[in-house]
Structure formats: C-alpha cells, structure tokens
C-alpha cells in the first residue's frame, strides 16, 4: 500500500500531495497519509466530499484514504 509521510508539511501541501498520489491509483485502492498539520483533518472532510474519495482516521496523524 502506498504511504505519504506529510509530517512537517503545512496546509495545503498534504492535500496537494495526496491529490497527486491518488491520481495514480485505481478505484478501491488505498493510501495511508501521515500528517501533523491541524488543517489536514477538516480539509480531508471537505476534500472527501468534493472528490468522492473516502477517508478514515486510523490514529492520531494517520489517515486511510480509499480511491473512489
């Protein structure tokens, strides 16, 4: 499974990097995002709604994204 370590990056870089990486995946494939930016979680909510991709928070600073 792909992983993005965006810890230390400020918004919107984690979401931009996620957008780049997820475009290389097929539907149903997953990617793990590590981010300590406080804007990431609220932005994943909006990003998920706008793009149709799904996300779940696995742990602090760890998110599982599933390609739509």
């Amino acid at each position, binding site marked *: 499974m792909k992983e993005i370590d965006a810890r230390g990056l*400020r*918004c*919107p870089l984690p*979401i*931009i990097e996620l*957008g780049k990486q997820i475009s290389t995946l097929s539907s149903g494939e997953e990617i793990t995002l590590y981010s300590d*930016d*406080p*804007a990431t979680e*609220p*932005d994943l*909510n*909006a*990003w998920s*709604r*706008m*793009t149709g991709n799904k996300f779940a928070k696995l742990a602090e600073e760890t998110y599982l994204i599933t390609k739509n």
Partner: protein
Amino acid sequence: MVRVTGNFQSESPLDPKAFEVLHAAFESGWANPGKLSQSGARAHQLRNQALESIAASLGVAKDSILPFSSLSMGYFLGIQGICDRSSTLIHGATDRKDVFAIAATMDHEILPSDLHGKILAPKAQSPTSVLALHVANAETGVIQDCAEIVGRVNSDRVFLDATASGIRKPISCEYSTAIFDSRSWYGPADIGFLVVNKAAQWHNPFPHLNAAKVNFDAPLPLIIASAVAIENFSSRVTEARIQAQVFNAQLRQAFSQIPNVDIAGSLDSTLEHMLSASFMNCNGEELLRGIQNDGFSVDSGSACTADDLEPSHVLAAMGILTHGNIRITLHPDTTQSEVDGLISSVKSNVDRLRS
C-alpha cells in the same frame, strides 16, 4: 508598492460624514457628561442625542443601550451579564472565539453546524441554560434562523451577536441582550453597543460598588460619530443590500465555474455583502498575495494566513475546505469594475497556483 484599487476586506474607511463630525465631537464633547458643569451638561446632551439616534436606527429603547469600547468586552457584558453560577452556556460551533473563551470558564455545550453553516439545535434543552447565538456569521455571512433555534433550545435567556449583521438584518426573535459593532454601519472601530432588552435578566458582570451606575462606557466622540454613521447608512442600507446582492451573485457565478471550489452558504442564506470561497490545492497566503499584487485586498480564513497557523474554526465546523480560502466583503462604494477586476484576478491566480 502596488496601489490597492479595490478594497474587499471587512475593514473599510470611516463613513465620511462620521469622519467630519469626529473632529468637531472631540472639540465639543471632551467634558465628562456625568459632571455638574456647563461643559458637562453639553456633553451629557450630545451623548443623549447620539444614543437616541442609534436606538431609533436599531429599533430599541434609548435606555436599553450601553456603549462599550472593545468587542471582547461586549461579548463578556452580553453573555456573562445574563449568566449565574449555575448557568450552562449553549453556543454554536461557528461563534466567534470570544464566545468560546467565555464558555471555557463555565459549563457549556457546543451546537454543531451543518454544511450550509446553519446551527443545529436539538430539542429539549434545559430552560435554565443560556443561549449565545449569532444573527449572521462574521466570516461567511451565513444567517441563522434565530427564532427557530431559540424556540428549540427553549431558554428564556438569550444573547444575540449582531456584530456582523448590524442594521442589515433586523433581529427577529426574543432575546435578553444583544451586541452591535459600529463598524457594521461604517462607524468608528473600538466602539460597540450592548442592548439590554430584558433588564430584569441582566446584571453588570464587572466588579462594581454602585449597582445603579454602570462602570463601563465608550469615548463620547466615538458615540457621536457612530450615531452619524448609522443615520447615514440607514438611509442607504436598502440600496446597498440590493447592489451587494447583484455583485455577490456575479462573484458566486464566476467562482462556481472554477473547478474544485467550495463556497460557503448560498446567496439566499447569507448576508449580501459577504462571500467566503475556498479553492482546492491553492495556498491561501499565496492566493492572498497574488490578488493583492493585482490591486485587490481580501481576507482569508486559511491556516497559513493566521497568526496561530490554525485553520478557521468556522470553516472546519461547517466542513468547508479550509485551505485556499478568501473572504470578500462588498462595501456600498464597491464598483462594477472592481468586481470584474477581482473575478479576473482570482481566476488567474487560482490557475497559476494550480499549474
């Protein structure tokens, strides 16, 4: 330095008529209205006339108005003044940080917001609670259904934050206290007005020895300038709202053509002169600077533009994209060419930052 040709920030210059009287007010309103002297009596008269004028424009009794000199103080006076030691404060997730700060000192409950910015109030709240509610949001302009929320929460003590709505959106529900910001009608900064609608429910929360005399106020010249500004804006508020609605519709239409944009609320559910839009994959600070370089000033709720690097709690509570955010305020003197220029600038800067 780039010359700013279009101001779309929430701050704006003082109303020209208010600016004119400010100088005269400092000349004639320097005395203490509470003192027994000729100059004191004159100051007392000027203060009364100004408060009568403001009360008339707000549609409230003159004796119910108390000026204060900072917004944080206004929130404290309005909320804490209707609370007692056993109160639970109920407020919205999109309220100003001042409300959160007061809530942190007591039992409190936060009502969530939906995607459109509307506060969700479940039924069957405790009637002994105190409700703090904004008439319209200061970041997004989203207007709350105050009467419905007040009915659902079922508290008889209600504080209303009318600092963003001012006289654009008259209060339409039962309330105990409300605060207004003079800047909402293009009056001076650092002055606001507390309206005590239900005197029996309010007490002065500041330490004081004489309950019959309030121990807070605002400078007399600022009260007079506020009165002149509200008189002036009252006479053209309808025209300003109509014009802002036209411009706001144009901006929404233009921005909605840009892919991956998140616009807060709808034209019908927000104050006409306010608009918040977030553009995915754009850095808010760079977007702000790009627009600034084109000669337009806007605000932003993105974390990268905030001192504490925290995203806007209002956008986060709504579930709106917090990065790449710009906030636009339309003023009565905003022109069509400025709106056209801003649209063009936003489009080109979003394109540039995404490429």
